[in-house]
């Protein structure tokens, strides 16, 4: 049977998994939208993301809200950030 040594590496790495969150693609802040949310705005950088759920507990970014995306980016670029 599998030894404890054989198991350790897998399980140690698995402990580092996060659930219910994704990183903002603009500022990399970890975001946890309310369950079922279809849109979520990053409180840190203000980018609004369209959200999809690949399980009832796990969200992911489907895409940006394009209308505000370009304007926000232009503003950031002008601000030198």
């Amino acid at each position, binding site marked *: *049977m*599998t030894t404890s040594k*054989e*198991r350790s*590496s*897998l399980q140690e*790495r*698995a402990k*580092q*998994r996060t*659930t219910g969150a994704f*990183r903002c*693609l*603009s500022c*990399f802040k970890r975001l946890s939208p309310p369950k079922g949310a279809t849109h979520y705005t990053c409180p840190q950088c203000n*980018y609004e*993301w369209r959200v*999809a759920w*690949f*399980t009832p507990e*796990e969200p*992911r*970014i*489907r*895409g*940006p809200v*394009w209308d505000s995306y*370009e304007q926000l*980016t232009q503003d*950031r*670029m002008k601000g030198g*950030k």
Partner: protein
Amino acid sequence: MSLSRKIAFVDLTTGKIETKPISKELRRKFLGGRGLDMYLLYKHTKPGVDPLGPDNVALISAGLLVGTLASASSRTHVGGKSPLTGYVGSANVGGFFGPEMRLAGFDHLVIRGKAEKPVYLYLHDDEIEIRDAEHLWGTDTRDVQDLIRQELADDDIQSLCIGQAGENLVKYACIRTSIKNAAGRTGIGAIWGSKNLKAVAAKGMRDIGIAQPKEALAYNKEIINQVTSAKVSKTMQKLGTPFIWGVTNSTGLVRTRNFQLNQLVNADDIEPESIEEDLVGTAGCFACQVHCRGKYFIKEGPYKGTYDEGPEYTSQGAFGAEVGCTSKNTVLVCNHLVNYYGMDNLETGSMISWAMELFEKGILTLEDTGGLDLTWGNDETVIELVHKIAKREGIGDILADSPLEAAARIGKDSERYLVHVKGMSNLHSDERPTPALALNIAVSSRGSDHLRGRPAIDLYHLPEKVLRQIYSNPIPYDGPLTSDYRDYEGKPWQVMWQEHLYSTVDCLGICKYHTVFLGPNMPAYEEWANLIRLNTGLELTPEEIYRAGERGYTLERLFNIREGMTREDDKLVDRYHDEPTPLGLPVVRGRFIDRDKFKIMVDEYYAHHEWDENGVPTREKLEALSLNTLDKSGSEPSNLV
């Protein structure tokens, strides 16, 4: 028993077939699959061999764990000297063929010569038949598999095959099995076409032989739990590889309109969640529980009602962003057509997008295209060009050649607009903001290639602590590692580490999605040591397995050098350095690859590999890997096979 495996040498010119056992020494050195094929490629071809001549080889190798129940261990490697690049030809494929080949009694095939008329091979019960395939010539990749099953009256037969693209020597024709499984890159399908080899079919009832069956089964289960509980696997179960689009296109990392833009704006119809609406289920390969392959029917247009599988992320880019199309239907139709004809979707889309940019710039005209309007986003033209390439009709005949050959035929400075490395087109990713990914494609052994060394997890902004856990194993590494994908520091080590990792899983026959490719918490060397021991009885340490992967990768380097590659080939096209990204988030906008920093990265990458400043493996390195018996003439004196 579990390591009593055979290799068969088939000469299509003479009809002679010879079988030999695989020595344990060779197995320990190269494991199987890609690594063993690289050994066979180096040993059984002469320098300068014509890729489409009878002296090139068509190689087929099962990975070491293929046929066992180790998670996702279906991958079978195919190889030869590439007609696309003139360097290493190498690709691998999942599905069910590899296990069936092993059940038929064979692990490796070396096919040489050229048949006088079309043939196919039938492997069964430790025997190989060379059978007439004249009646199969001209069939697509589905029909040929069905017809072989009918002819041999056995629905369980699995085949590798080529479609019309391989017969027509499209330089990026691929090898197919099942509906959509593809050994896609470097044009191995054209090698088969040049040999009049339509298919290799297999059916067997031999005992695979598992060293410790109960223990292997228990450990396999643990690995499966680890893999299927990972977020990336859950995502792929639902969306397939198109899930990647959410991150890459939202950020601005998608090559669009050839290389003019880095994002396809307002393309919601080809987002994975939109594609998912058309899926009727998912399918998987042998011994895989993830099932990442979508099943769909085309819903509208002339192909309405047609069934196919996929699309992969590569088809989203090839027939979406690259060509400026925002229609899901175009992606699904073109995905179907490349499956049908047997072509590499990535190269097909790249060649079409290149032609579209040439058309936009007036280098190609309506006269050149036979009246086809190659304006960006012209869905009908894109679909029509896929047909024309496969059949080598009109402008399609030029685009069916390799990128560099096509540019030479068109002239007019058209090569300037190719987006390639070593003559193979880039994935539809835009690597200008990501130096690690840019280095990966520049130095890859088979041309621009995300599947040879891409540190894809570099995009995840992982903490340095996690990166160090991954990249310091099984070989210690205490150099820099950073979470910022825009950095240049530490990236050469990541690229080299991933090269050896991917080489290793390609030797084992394990799917890359079940290792540190798209997810950080996936099995690696320690787990593979256990899988190998329990399934085959071969005792190897994690470091020995790492070195086996490195050995195969080094041999690819040696093969390329033998065929004329130099440091000058480890480069990006000028646009990476001269044209900053115009779109995307602030973190990626205005980015380009700095020439000086890039040169330093290449130097560091060579140093990590223990290659000299010209990218040639040092004598010491070759001795350490026991590759020093390979001499400069290309002959291999050890005679292990």
